[in-house]
């Protein structure tokens, strides 16, 4: 990467011309909005416990998304507000803290209990084994194989494929960037899908991939000062669209894109998890072209619904494009012009014509 020769400090440079493939022929908006998974059931008798990952509500990311699912269940399924409890993990806590949190929920009669984040896997396995009568769900993990545990996992690579394709369609320099927070397998899925999507549109596109911190150093999700610098490095190197999967550091990526945007050189960013055009404060949100949606809210809502209906078996193996478990956002209207092509890719993925890799190549 960075083969573009000596670039000017902050200015964008016109890169090579992109050769773009046509969108798959399937087209036609097929299966764009699938039918709801199940009809709304009555959840008024349920006591739902939520165990969030570090930060809990207010992270503008997947904890908030999970909370949104809970709120939807309250409004749509008759779940009683006082029959819910939300707890959150602390930084650097040990396994037993996670287990204790789940046990507290069990002890106080919550059922089902939803653990948000793969860090709960081990603790959940222990607690679920001890309490076979309680229903559990875990977000982002499918390693706990117990009858009373429902995995809520997502095809992040599929959503990322679409925003990758969008980036490749939109880029003017034929060079785009990806900023990962921490170099972990989960984030690799985002990267892999994004790169695959971009290459599917423009085989000669250049994708800069950078991570803020290596595996095990979770500061990369929490250091927007460094996030800015990584993004600026990519922008200065010629990229004009940057996709971030960096948690709270993502704010830094948006700020970097916002700063680099000049009247004559529009730079764009792609958000992650929730529709960040709506959550990031203006005017910075104006640079957000689209967001890769990871609909934890959909999964949580569907799960509560399924428990209420006594049909957890009906939930999908993975929340992917076909059930709207992942997708892309359109707020801000910056991808309206390419919506057709994106929908074509989406349909092709759902049909299985395109296989999106989930590990980086």
């Amino acid at each position, binding site marked *: 990467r960075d083969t573009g020769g000596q670039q000017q400090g902050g200015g964008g440079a016109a890169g090579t011309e992109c050769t773009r493939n046509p969108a798959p022929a399937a087209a036609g908006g097929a299966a764009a909005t699938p039918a709801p998974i199940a009809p709304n059931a009555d959840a008024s008798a349920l006591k739902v416990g939520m165990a969030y990952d570090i930060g809990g509500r207010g992270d503008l990311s997947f904890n908030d998304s999970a909370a949104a699912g809970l709120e939807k269940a309250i409004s749509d399924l008759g779940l009683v507000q006082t029959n819910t409890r939300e707890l959150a993990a602390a930084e650097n806590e040990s396994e037993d803290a996670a287990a204790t*949190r789940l046990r507290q929920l069990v002890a106080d009669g919550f059922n089902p209990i939803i653990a948000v984040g*793969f860090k709960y896997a*081990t603790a959940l396995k222990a607690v679920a084994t001890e309490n076979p009568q309680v229903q559990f769900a875990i977000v982002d993990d499918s390693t706990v194989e117990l009858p009373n545990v429902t995995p809520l996992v997502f095809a992040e690579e599929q959503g990322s494929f679409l925003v990758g394709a969008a980036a490749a369609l939109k880029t003017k320099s034929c060079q785009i960037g990806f900023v990962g927070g921490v170099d972990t*397998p989960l984030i690799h899925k985002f990267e892999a899908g994004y790169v695959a999507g971009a290459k599917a549109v423009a085989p000669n596109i250049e994708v800069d991939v950078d991570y803020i911190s290596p*595996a095990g150093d979770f500061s990369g999700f929490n250091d927007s000062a460094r996030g800015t610098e990584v993004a600026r490095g990519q922008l200065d190197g010629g990229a004009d669209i940057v996709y971030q999967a960096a948690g709270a550091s993502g704010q830094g990526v948006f700020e970097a894109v916002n700063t680099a945007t000049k009247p004559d050189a529009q730079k764009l960013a792609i958000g992650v998890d929730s529709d960040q055009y709506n959550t990031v404060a203006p005017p910075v949100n104006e640079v957000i072209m689209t967001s890769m949606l990871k609909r934890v809210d959909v999964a949580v809502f569907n799960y509560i619904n399924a428990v209420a209906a006594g049909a957890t078996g009906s939930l999908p193996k993975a929340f992917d494009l076909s059930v709207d478990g992942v997708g892309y956002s359109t707020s801000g209207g910056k991808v309206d012009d390419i919506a057709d092509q994106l929908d074509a890719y989406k349909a092709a993925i759902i049909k299985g014509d395109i296989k999106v890799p989930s590990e980086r190549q």
Partner: protein
Amino acid sequence: MTRIRTVLLPPVLAIVFAALLCAVALLINGDSPLTALRVMVTQVGEGTTAVDIINTGAIYYVAGLAVAIGFQMKLFNIGVEGQFRLAACVAAIAGGALSLPPGLHTLVIILVGAAVGALWASVPALLKAYRGVHEVISSIMMNFIATGVIAYLISTEGFGVLRGNNISTDPIEPTGHFPGISFGASGTIFGFVFLAAALGLAYGFMLNRTRFGFELKASGESPTAAAAGGVDARRMVIVALLLSGAMAGLVGLPELLGRDHAYTLTSPAGYGFTGIAVALLGRNHPVGIALGALLWAFLDKSALALDNVGVPREIVLIMQGSIVLSVVIAYEIVRRYELAAEQRRVAAQLRAVTGVPAEVGS
């Protein structure tokens, strides 16, 4: 009597002071300090909390011992954090790769942990002894670098394997586990807890009964007097930091050998820093550190219980921070007071014994 005053009074004062501070903070927040107190007390009987306090306490205890070894000679091993994390990672890799008979397997893992901890501590030790680099700065840098090395080791190109969205080292075979004592629904006490207690005993023995412990304390109290007494300062720096590092290398093992059996991305961090606080609370005394470790573990678990009833758990952090600060201040005040009292007492006793006033006029 004076001993009780000097040893027990400061921490009690400090805890009371910290509790008052927290009560004020809670009241500002509109929460009832009494509820908080009740929750903190009753949590101990619930679920596995009691066992967890003991298990976590054992981890903090080992970390505290590691820091305390350095403190004995006024060396500040802030690098326990990096040493323990790297040691746990390498020990897990070694344990997963080896297959040995039960007991031996565990022993080898423990030795690997200690060796790696000592190795990581040897950099600050040698830099301190031969280049005069302050151990605090070098070990802080080593903590950062340890994170990089761990990331390298457990990446999938290294020794890591993908497990769901997590990366983990190869799990250690049951032959390498450290069996614990199960209390059924109340949890399982790590077998390592007893090893930790034994380490505490060994530390106490080493400190008070052996030449090495004597030299360590002497160097800490007065490097000049120790040098005149034949203690090689450079050697002591190296040995003390290596020992501290070796002890630090064991910090991650209770969980590794007793519960997790593999090192993962989400393996905990921060025990090294807790160890500093615990060693300070316990005044580097083997029993004191144990009490400090249990108190710290208790407060940690209280955060969970408070969160569960909607009381802000940050209160626990304030409590921990203010306890440490006020306990050192309290010890200092009592120490000064006692020193003056001691001198007065000796003078008075001498007067009584010799019949001659210690204050001689013309």
